């Protein structure tokens, strides 16, 4: 009888798990793209197909290719010795192996060759493949003797101008590898098949990514990410206190890193443009031993290789285009408040939305002359006139717009100060913050909060979502005192709306303000 009851109980638990399906944490959803993985670690994009990726299985010794839409998988190479990471250059994969090797694998044949050996527990790989033109006939022609023409995973030869006679080309083909066992960052020349030490004394490094002449390295000791200048070897700490930080992923064209934290089983984001900075959670509840990271171009899908699965976290994604009138400033970022570092990205990441803040125009003419008061009609025209098509919504990525206005609003009466407006409520496609108000220009806390609040309206968040708290969506007049009592957090009601409600009722331009059929009960 007891056994029967136990079985029933376990069956119920299994049923609940199956029914609930995707895990709802900070992310919109977290699902297994591929189960049955045998020690998944390194993961990288397939440069030849945006729908595919490569990953290695530490326990099975395989390099595999996976379709990111369907989860269909094929094996590229077997017989690797505890492969840890993979990076692709052209038709060659470079794989670090636990036995201390960096191995090349031909993607078409699966043929393997040792590039270097004797590495001490090599981990993540960062490729640097650059084609340089050197020793040009005239320094005047190019303004210098060395011109990089391609930086990335694949060599690229650009058109050589006719006036250049007999240019010499030099291919720099390097892999930077961190060695967990020896605490070194090592540079491997992939053509010469030689290695050289770049930096030693790292505290059990695991992850590495490159940005120009800078390497970012995750270290298990102290749970930190360090910044290493490859020219000088100077090392500085970007962030510490992470929970077993593992592999890194550089945000495309942005000052940001994604990092898997094995101790907390989560994926986090670090704004490396800020000092000090802090990690913000992107996805939690990942399976055990999260490692390699891959992010879709529109930043709406995050793939993580874990010990037993390839997981996919889906977030909402939006550009936030910010334009400034001449004489104003962009909203502040990285404010220390209540023991936290507040950023627009961090505020929205808490609600499972990855915003890509783009500072666009910085000198929009205010056309004001002596009159620095802006009417509704003028603001309506302003919103429509300064959208940059480069940050237009496309695919899964939305677009929100904010303008910092050098002036004030047409107030309803004396004693009133309007800090921000949202335009227009028929389709929620723009908002403005009034820099002419001393509280905005002189109080960064109020400036950042008002910007986040008006953007919240663009994403169809209502004031009532902030009821009873000093949340982002609380009506400004209800915060006492403003801005000292502000909080840079959304309420759970707002977060649920931003994360889960139908796309058209959240995305700017999707529907009228306040039109959302879903319940917004606390």
């Amino acid at each position, binding site marked *: 009888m007891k056994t029967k009851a136990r079985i029933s109980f376990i069956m119920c638990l299994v049923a609940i798990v199956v029914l609930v399906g995707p895990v709802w944490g900070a992310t919109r959803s977290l699902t297994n793209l591929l189960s049955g993985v045998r020690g998944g670690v390194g993961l990288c994009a397939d440069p030849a197909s945006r729908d595919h990726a490569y990953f290695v299985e530490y326990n099975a010794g395989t390099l595999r290719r996976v379709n990111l839409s369907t989860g269909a998988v094929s094996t590229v190479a077997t017989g690797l010795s505890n492969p840890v990471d993979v990076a692709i250059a052209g038709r060659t994969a470079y794989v670090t192996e636990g036995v201390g090797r960096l191995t090349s694998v031909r993607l078409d044949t699966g043929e393997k060759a040792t590039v270097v050996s004797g590495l001490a527990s090599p981990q993540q790989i960062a490729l640097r493949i650059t084609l340089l033109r050197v020793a040009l006939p005239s320094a005047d022609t190019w303004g210098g003797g060395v011109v990089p023409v391609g930086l990335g995973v694949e060599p690229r030869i650009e058109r050589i101008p006719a006036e250049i006679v007999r240019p010499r080309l030099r291919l720099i083909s390097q892999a930077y590898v961190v060695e967990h066992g020896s605490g070194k960052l090592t540079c491997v020349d992939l053509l010469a098949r030689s290695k050289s030490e770049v930096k030693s004394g790292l505290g059990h490094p695991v992850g590495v990514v490159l940005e120009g002449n800078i390497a970012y390295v995750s270290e298990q000791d102290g749970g930190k990410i360090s910044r290493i200048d490859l020219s000088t070897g100077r090392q500085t700490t970007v962030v510490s206190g992470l929970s077993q930080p593992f592999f890194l992923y550089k945000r495309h064209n942005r000052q940001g890193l994604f990092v898997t934290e094995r101790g907390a089983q989560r994926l986090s984001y670090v704004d490396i443009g800020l000092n000090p900075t802090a990690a913000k959670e992107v996805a939690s509840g990942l399976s055990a031993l999260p490692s390699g990271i891959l992010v879709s171009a529109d930043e709406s899908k995050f793939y993580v290789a874990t010990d037993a699965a390839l997981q996919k976290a889906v977030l909402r994604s939006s550009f936030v285009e910010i334009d400034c009138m001449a004489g104003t400033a962009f909203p502040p970022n990285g404010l220390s408040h209540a023991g936290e570092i507040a950023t627009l990205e961090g505020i929205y990441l808490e609600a499972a939305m990855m915003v890509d803040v783009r500072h666009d125009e910085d000198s929009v003419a*205010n056309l004001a002359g002596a009159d620095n008061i802006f009417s509704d009609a003028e603001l*309506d*025209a302003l919103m429509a006139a300064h959208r940059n098509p480069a940050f237009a919504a496309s695919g899964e990525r939305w677009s929100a717009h904010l303008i910092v206005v050098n002036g004030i609003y047409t107030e309803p009466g004396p004693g009133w100060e309007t800090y921000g407006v949202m335009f227009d409520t028929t389709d929620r496609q723009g908002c403005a913050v009034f820099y002419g108000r001393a509280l905005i220009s002189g109080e960064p806390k109020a400036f950042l909060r008002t910007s986040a609040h008006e953007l919240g309206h663009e994403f169809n968040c209502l004031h009532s979502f902030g009821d009873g708290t000093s949340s982002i969506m609380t009506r400004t007049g209800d915060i006492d005192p403003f801005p000292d009592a502000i909080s840079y957090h959304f309420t759970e009601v707002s977060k649920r709306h931003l994360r889960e409600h139908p796309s058209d009722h959240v995305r700017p331009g999707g529907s009228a303000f306040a039109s959302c059929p879903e319940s917004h009960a606390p």
Partner: protein
Amino acid sequence: MRRKLCLLVCCGVILWLFAGVASAELSLTLSSHKSSFALGEPIIVDVELKCLGGTARVLGELDPKYHTLIFFVRGPAGGEEAFIPLVLAEALGTETTLGPGESLKESAKLFFGGRGWTFPSPGNYQIRAVFEGVIGAPGPLSSNVLALEVRAPANTAEQEQARLIMGREQGKFLIYEGGDHLTQGIQALRALVSRYPRSPHAAYANFALGMAYSKPFKNFKTGVLRPANPVLARNYLNKVRVGLIAPSLRMRLQQLAPLLNLNLRLPR
């Protein structure tokens, strides 16, 4: 002894804070200068927050864009929806104290908002509002229910008037009382005032066009600051049939008359 004194002071402060509200009697009244409107005729509702007795402390604007006063509209189909103003504004205001008999008055342009035209079809409508700006009040203050009728067009001319005014850009222009960039809306409103000058729709269109040209306009679409054009403004405002527009607009027009040297078409 000191403790007792502190307690007494605290009690005093608490009593003082709540005294005004506890003894205040407030009313929120919605009214309109008429109860029946042609389809597309802009509907503007007058709001009065009145202190009937005691003293009330109020923080908030009676303009719905500040989200302290929220309107609800029940249409002919029966469902009630909150009115969404075209612009949402985030502000800090000053506290107002209302003594017995004192009131705050405002007019609310409800005809167009975030959902488009608020009264899009003929039938009976009910409007109510709640005000959330009474300091210390246990809950929002509710208004009376204002019943209005929107008449179906009686002929093709009235159909055409409704068609010419009930566009998105026209709605925005009428709410903003400006917007040179709303060129299609302006074109339709000009056609309206030219073809149907005696209609109530034209009265509102002339008013909005005149008010727009009475002020400069920062046209960010063209990058040009247009100066005020008193001649054009006078031209439109002189054509407003004053007896057809809401009293709040009539009052503004009368205030503007000496400045622009207007010759208003006052009702006989």
